[in-house]
């Protein structure tokens, strides 16, 4: 029966090519626009560490003075050197890392290469195991190297390709800011999206090329990048004395194995704040937060508002396209009242006529879906031409592809429901008489 309905549907669609084309085009445009924007949204709101994100937490404490104090307001989104170090040394989590962004002048030994600046991350030992960074060669550093302000570096695969032709460069010397560093590890391709561990550095930027111990960077007074918020006496212009400045400028991450541990850690943060207040370092009442990775991305509203706006618009666009298709299908089905009347008179039940019309709607949906996928590919190609740092991530993956087809066919079946129902209400006798 399905084959027969399909045959009828194709015949009917061929009969009025313009109308068919219009319906298919409308669905294709709506689906194409929706899938383009939804794919971008999907990519941008993805989980950078799916296996681990529930166990990674970002603590916040409130170290500010009483100026502009409002109870319950969100605390600072970074920590001071003193708090960062205290939390790090307390070792209350399974792993923890303190970090900030920076830029280092790399001075290649090859005379053929001019010096250049590389983005760097100054961090502590647990960064690598905690974020499960893949190593191509070597390994990260240990706490001893943190404490010893060791001149060691972990570099990215692309920097390794550039400086060492992709060979195993561990134990090679890398000169940065007139200092010799020993390469101890080379990361394989690693690009967590978003750049969750420091959202101030461009939310979808690539991971840094150079990783150095935080203490080493302070020792050499390497240039830092990122956000810095100072209050009171501040001292924010002076990068050399940030350790004692009343400024927040570091990110602190902690790995906690279970919900119980997270609750414990929250209590610890609360006690820590109270203790610091008792010591006179903090002035505000304890106000702590502990967000896991995905919550932290939410708090920071990582997905650009333009992208969300575009998704809503595309959805509205799809709705107009569907209403349009419902209208056209209605016209089309009702126009065939005569033919349907004959079928009914010859014994087809209402149900069968209904099914026949739905198959026709489904065929339009399938064609629209194929068109929509092609348009989505075109749309994503256009998105990738944009300058935004997330642009290169916009690709259609298999789940999104399947969703596209499901959406297209569901949409067109839904838009076929009303017209088909209306059309099968026709009383055969009336139609036959008027012929």
């Amino acid at each position: 029966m399905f084959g027969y309905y399909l045959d009828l549907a194709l015949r009917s669609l061929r009969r009025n090519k313009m109308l068919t084309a219009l319906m298919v085009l409308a669905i294709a445009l709506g689906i194409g626009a929706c899938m383009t924007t939804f794919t971008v949204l999907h990519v941008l709101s993805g989980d950078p560490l799916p296996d681990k994100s529930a166990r990674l937490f970002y603590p916040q404490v409130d170290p500010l003075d009483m100026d502009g104090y409002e109870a319950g307001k969100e605390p600072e989104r970074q920590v001071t050197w003193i708090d960062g170090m205290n939390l790090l040394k307390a070792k209350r989590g399974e792993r923890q890392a303190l970090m900030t962004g920076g830029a280092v002048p790399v001075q290649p030994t090859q005379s053929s290469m001019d010096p250049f600046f590389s983005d760097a991350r100054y961090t502590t030992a647990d960064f690598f195991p905690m974020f499960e960074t893949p190593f191509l060669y070597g390994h990260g550093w240990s706490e001893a190297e943190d404490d010893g302000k060791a001149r060691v570096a972990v570099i990215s695969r692309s920097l390794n390709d550039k400086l060492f032709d992709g060979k195993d460069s561990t134990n090679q010397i890398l000169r940065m800011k007139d200092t010799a560093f020993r390469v101890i590890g080379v990361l394989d391709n690693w690009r967590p999206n978003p750049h969750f561990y420091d959202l101030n550095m461009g939310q979808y930027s690539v991971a840094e090329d150079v990783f150095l111990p935080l203490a080493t960077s302070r020792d050499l007074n390497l240039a830092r990048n990122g956000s810095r918020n100072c209050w009171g006496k501040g001292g924010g212009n002076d990068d050399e004395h940030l350790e004692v400045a009343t400024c927040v400028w570091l990110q602190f991450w902690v790995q906690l194995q279970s919900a119980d541990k997270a609750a414990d850690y929250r209590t610890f943060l609360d006690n820590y704040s109270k203790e610091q207040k008792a010591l006179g370092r903090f002035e505000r009442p304890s106000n702590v937060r502990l967000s896991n990775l995905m919550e932290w991305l939410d708090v920071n509203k990582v997905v650009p508002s333009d992208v969300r706006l575009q998704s809503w618009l595309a959805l509205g666009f799809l709705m107009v396209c569907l209403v349009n298709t419902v209208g056209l299908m209605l016209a089309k089905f009702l126009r065939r009242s005569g033919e349907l009347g004959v079928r009914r008179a010859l014994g087809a039940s209402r149900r069968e006529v209904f099914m026949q019309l739905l198959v026709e709607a489904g065929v339009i949906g399938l064609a629209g879906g194929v068109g929509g996928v092609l348009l989505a590919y075109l749309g994503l190609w256009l998105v990738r031409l944009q300058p935004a740092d997330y642009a290169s991530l916009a690709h259609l993956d298999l789940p999104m592809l399947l969703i596209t087809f499901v959406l297209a066919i569901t949409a067109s079946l839904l838009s076929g429901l009303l017209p088909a129902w209306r059309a099968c209400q026709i009383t055969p006798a009336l139609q036959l008489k008027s012929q």
Partner: protein
Amino acid sequence: MMQIKPILAALKRHKAGTILIALQIALTLAIVCNALFIIQQRVDRLSRPTGMIETDLMAIQNRWVGIDDEATAPLVKADIQILRSLPGVEDAVSTNSFPLRGGGWSMGVRLNPTAKKPITQTTLYFVDDHALPTMGAKLIAGRNFRADEVVTIDPKVFESSPVVIITKALADKVFPDGSALGKQIYITEGAPSSTVIGIVERLQVPWNGNFANKFEGNSTLLPIQLSGNFSAYLIRSKPGQLASVLKAAPAALFKANRMRVIPSERGVRTYADVREQAYKSDRGMAILMGIICVVLLAITAAGIVGLTSFWVGQRRKQIGVRRALGATKHDILSYFLTENLLIGIGGVVVGAMLAVGMNLWLMQQFEMARLSPVYVIAGVIVLLLLGQGAVLAPAMRAARVSPVEATRSV
């Protein structure tokens, strides 16, 4: 107009189709109004003047490598001398930032040095006496810096400058009575005051994000050259010689000193490039909205043509009868036009409400401004005209139905 009653009676028999067309018109109106509004906001933003003369202007961003931050001042001075003496260069200045660069220095402005809350924010441009001619910024009161006022300062110990030039926007904000010239302002809490010696008509801040909207015209120029690892050079070429300076300037800098990095990306740019890159996402959004509007209107028009054509086909017999009973072609034409107008009016009334509702929602979600009624009115007119245009072809076909049809197959 006397036709309205029979039209309404006829529409009652085509409820589903009528509602669908009206709904489509309503949704299209709501989306198009808001999309046009977004376009206008973005276009407004990207057509803001910087206050500089942007032709024949270029920017170089330079970082020193292997030189102590404190030792860079003479190198920058030498760079500027080289740039100013290049053939084809009108003038050049070293600054920490420039309009639309993206990163810069901002401070709170106070009239009372110990006030907790500053009056407003300003960006600081650390320049010398060549800044105004290089930028092409227009001095509307007071004077430019003198060469002997320019000093070099380590950014770590910077607090303020005895003399400053501010923009009119900042002057009006701090001294609403227009008396800024010669007055004292404080740009760092608790630091010595600065005398306003000049006022420029306009100079935009380095940022173009929403957060900077509140102070996008508040700039302060200081006769200070900051020592340090980073510097930006603004260069004004002689008219029409920008292309050659664009190549000659970085080459001359490298020839003088190789201990530097000028990034391959955004290192050397004409100011036209700076502007384009700063506003690329705004322009992209505006173009996208434009495309959505056009496609939506086209789809709606096609839908109206399709459904009306069907109605005309369905009613050929009735039209024939009406023609046989004495209705003129014009009567038939105006019947379909009026019918479409009625549906259209229904659609735009709902659509106008939807548009306002959608705008309210967008205001909540995306920090949008309130939709001006002009857009709704314009949208209403466009959609009604679109409907009339779309219905014209099927209606003319209807008008051509001959009275003979009435006699056929009855």
